[in-house]
């Protein structure tokens, strides 16, 4: 039977805090072969749609498939780019406008690899991971978000 590396947990409940990001950065200061980090953060926008303002997004996912996809995307990135480290965190549940829902963190010896890999990861996540988002308006009505 095929043995598989256990997928690393990506989903976190609610918003991702700036402190979590700082802690993650600090953990990499012992890795002195790293010369460049790239961090992408997705933040929930208070978009105005037909006169109503988004106050937050409630994220849900097909979790088993999503964690598997995150794992495949990570493996593909390690294959494609010369990376020292890579971390992905995505929110589930409610995230308010202004809060962070996606944290992608790549580290490499040189800047181009870190930046190329970060971009690759963000695009792959947006296109291939089964995450769903309900944009909640201030009057509690909602609409389902679709990635562009």
């Amino acid at each position, binding site marked *: 039977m095929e043995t598989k590396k256990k997928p690393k947990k990506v989903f976190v409940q609610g918003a991702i805090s700036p402190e979590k990001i700082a802690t993650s950065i600090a953990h990499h200061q012992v890795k002195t072969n790293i010369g460049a980090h790239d961090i992408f953060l997705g933040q929930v926008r208070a978009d105005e749609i037909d006169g109503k303002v988004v106050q937050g997004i409630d994220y*849900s*996912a*097909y979790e088993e498939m999503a964690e*598997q996809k995150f794992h495949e995307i990570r493996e593909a990135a390690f294959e494609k780019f010369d990376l020292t480290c890579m971390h992905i965190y995505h929110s589930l549940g409610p995230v308010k406008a202004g809060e962070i829902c996606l944290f992608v963190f790549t580290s490499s010896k040189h800047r181009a690899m870190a930046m190329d890999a970060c971009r690759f990861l963000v695009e792959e*996540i*947006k296109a291939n991971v*089964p995450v769903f988002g309900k944009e909640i308006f201030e009057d509690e009505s909602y609409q389902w978000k679709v*990635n562009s």
Partner: protein
Amino acid sequence: MILNLKYFGRIVEITNLTEEQYNAGESMSLNELRTWLINRYTDLEKESFQIAVNQELKSNDFLIKGDCEVAILPPFAGG
């Protein structure tokens, strides 16, 4: 064969349930499954959705031949 159907996001608002079992015949293409779903939940006709079989997206000509988990997935909105 038994299909464990799972519904997500806005699809759930049409099916009004998140899971159900469908005792299908010996085999079924995803095209046939789409037709069955739309007959059962007519509002699905105007929805855009993809189908994952055992957590892998498959095209409409894919043939299901045994028990499996089949997820009906609306457009993704991650990130």
